[in-house]
């Protein structure tokens, strides 16, 4: 892990009088990194801080060597929010053509990302008529436009069928192989095995950061979920 994609120092975020993140320190490198933890533990807040859309109270976040949210980064980060952030009343292709124009990209790029998320058959369907899984894939396709150096994906595989989930994880790995850093959050522990690196998070605190294998080894168990429970009990 020589190149650090994300560097978080003493990050503090307070929302509604409650410190969601309190002086968090973190380094994330290349490959596919899974941010795992129960809902409400601060995953989305951390991802939003990395993308630079979260108001923070203290600390520093540097992404690809620049301060998070800086102008130079806006071309280089693909971001998928938890809700499918696409226009319901446009077709998949119209959505992608619009975001591609905003990024200054051509129509070839639209075809490429439609194929990447396997939506070619639905390209001319209006988004509101798609299933939940298809909508989130349309939203993911937007993030793939322009082959960003960092992908920040907030629970992109929720509610998808197992075949599709496997295909998307393969896609994340091929993007990582091509040189991108991929940060994926999930509250489903069985997705942990698919990541190169894991961040286990609870109540705004990182309990462990390591490969899935080493996390399991250290706890002496066979699955990440049990290792997580073990870490929680040891911290208590």
């Amino acid at each position: 892990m020589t190149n650090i994609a994300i560097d978080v120092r003493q990050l503090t975020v307070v929302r509604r009088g409650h410190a969601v993140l309190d002086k968090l320190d973190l380094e994330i490198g290349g490959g596919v990194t899974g941010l795992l933890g129960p809902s409400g533990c601060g995953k989305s807040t951390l991802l939003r801080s990395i993308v630079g859309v979260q108001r923070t109270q203290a600390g520093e976040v540097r992404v690809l060597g620049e301060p998070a949210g800086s102008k130079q980064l806006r071309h280089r980060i693909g971001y998928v929010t938890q809700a499918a952030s696409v226009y319901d009343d446009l077709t998949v292709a119209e959505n992608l053509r619009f975001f591609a124009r905003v990024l200054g990209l051509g129509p070839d790029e639209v075809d490429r990302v439609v194929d990447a998320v396997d939506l070619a058959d639905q390209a001319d369907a209006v988004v509101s008529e798609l299933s939940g899984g298809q909508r989130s894939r349309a939203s993911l396709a937007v993030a793939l436009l322009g082959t960003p150096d960092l992908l920040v994906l907030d629970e992109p595989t929720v509610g998808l069928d197992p075949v599709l989930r496997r295909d998307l994880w393969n896609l994340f790995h091929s993007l990582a192989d091509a040189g991108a850093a991929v940060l994926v959050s999930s509250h489903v522990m069985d997705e942990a095995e698919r990541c190169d690196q894991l961040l286990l998070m609870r109540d705004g605190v990182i309990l462990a950061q390591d490969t899935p294998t080493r996390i399991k080894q250290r706890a002496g168990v066979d699955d990440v979920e049990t290792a997580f429970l073990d870490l929680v009990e040891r911290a208590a």
Partner: protein
Amino acid sequence: MNPRITLAVAGRVLTQLRRDHRTLAMMLVVPCALISLLWWMFKDLDSSSFDRFGPALLAMFPFIVMFLVTSITTLRERASGTLERLLAMPMGKGDFLLGYAVAFGLVAALQSVLAVGVSVGLLGLDVEGPVWLLTLVAVADAVLGSALGLFVSAFANTEFQAVQFMPALVLPQVLLCGLFVPRALLPDVLEAVSNVLPLSYAVDAMQTLTRTASTSDVWQDLAVVLAFTLGGLAVGAATLRRRTS
């Protein structure tokens, strides 16, 4: 600011509108129907009544319709996460606002041409000044409505709240714009209030255009309307935050 991005936003908003046939029909047909209704109401009274109320309505309809449409669409954009996504991309706030203004300005121009055409061509509204200037004032009113709608969308959390801003912000302007009581005859305090409300100037411009051929007052009123529009857009831009809590 980047013209490519501004046009991308405008094109996208127009595509969305084109798909929504019902909204488009309401935006184009309802003003014409209401003006015809007004004409019909006054048909058996003396003919000057329609000439008195018609111009004010020509100023009001584009303003109200655009206020509603813009406040709801931008609220949706804030709520759905698409705004957050756009602001994480290389999109200037000005591109976003101007894109909306261009798209709705075009629709407003079409709406105003239809409403003015029906009023002047079919219903016999007497216009002493140039008809194109009447249309231009109507377009400016529509863009003003868009700017204010954009502004209030920042203060509403739901579409239900956004609609409530209509009686709160728009109806007082309608009451005080000189339609019911000429502004000079209002109690002093209310006259002073009406002097700082943009719709008063829009209605003044329309009434002047129907009464006289001299246009210098109209340009002055138009300048005030445009100043309010720019102010609304500037405040609207301040409510678009890249970072939110």
